[in-house]
């Protein structure tokens, strides 16, 4: 009689443990699925943040910004500086890699004419994810008979497109 009771109790305990481990395994599977998805999302977010950060850094760089007679024009890239900076980047790619990393930086003029200019491009060898951040900027070029932000020159509308590559 006692033996049977002990057996029933044992089965009961085993049943409880089976259900417990089943629920635990289910929890672990769900948790890891969620974790892997959130890590991928987080990686995308970091790339987007990096692209955003790079765009901010770029138009505040003295190599590119518009600074005339003690006045700085916000969100502006000097056309002449852009041409020179592009050559400088090509000549000293390693130096600028520390700042720009694996990324692609394009300046797309959209008004009055449309034209595209690739300032920097460095893709990783291995698999990567990429995020793009696009922000409008003005492209200043010195010109007579035109006005822009209190200066004698012309301001074209451009889009700065920063693609950040995050190696996987």
């Amino acid at each position, binding site marked *: 009689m006692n033996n049977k009771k002990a057996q029933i*109790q044992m089965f*009961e*305990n085993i*049943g*409880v443990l089976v*259900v*417990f481990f089943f*629920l*635990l395994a*289910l*929890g672990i599977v*769900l*948790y890891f699925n*969620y974790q892997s998805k*959130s890590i991928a999302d987080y990686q995308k*977010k970091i790339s*987007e*943040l990096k692209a*955003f950060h790079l765009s*901010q850094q770029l138009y505040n760089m003295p190599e590119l910004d518009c600074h005339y007679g003690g006045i700085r*024009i*916000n*969100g*502006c890239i000097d056309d002449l500086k852009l041409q020179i900076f592009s050559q400088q980047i090509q000549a000293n790619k390693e130096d600028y890699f520390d700042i720009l990393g694996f990324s692609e930086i394009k300046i797309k003029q*959209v*008004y*009055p004419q449309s034209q595209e200019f690739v300032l920097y491009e460095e893709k990783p060898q291995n698999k990567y994810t990429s995020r793009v*951040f*696009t*922000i*409008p*900027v*003005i492209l200043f070029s010195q*010109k007579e*008979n*035109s*006005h*822009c*932000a209190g200066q004698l*020159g*012309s*301001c*074209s*509308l451009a*889009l700065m497109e920063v693609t950040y590559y995050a190696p996987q």
Partner: protein
Amino acid sequence: MHHNKGSEIMGLAIAMILITIGILFATVFLMKQSDEKFNIILDQELASNTLSSILQTTTNCNGQTIENLIIDCAGERRFLCSGSYSCDFVRNELKVLLDRTLSAQKRNYFLNFKTSDEIFFFGEKCQSQQTSSTAQIPVYGELISVRLDLCR
């Protein structure tokens, strides 16, 4: 008594699982909130840069910026741009500029210019949430307020 012990363990196990799931949902909710804040920051930057860049863009009407043409339109109307008044010209050019920036990025927007007696706008009012950027243009003793709403 033994039955109770089994149920107790089962109850505890279920409680643990429920607490874990609860924590998981709370984490998801908090992560979504921080994502939202991040997107707001990006949109604020995009809205303010778009507005300031558009206003400072030089047009082919006497080499004047959009801002100067708006001032002219609200005041003396001295400039004739390709045979039309500055008001018509600036409306057309603003549409082109917005099409090539925000519309090209598939962003819905509402840009509105308001003086004491006139309002003109581009795009459609945002149905849900929005991020805004504003600018004030002084014109002959009054202010034109410009507001760009980026819809989310």
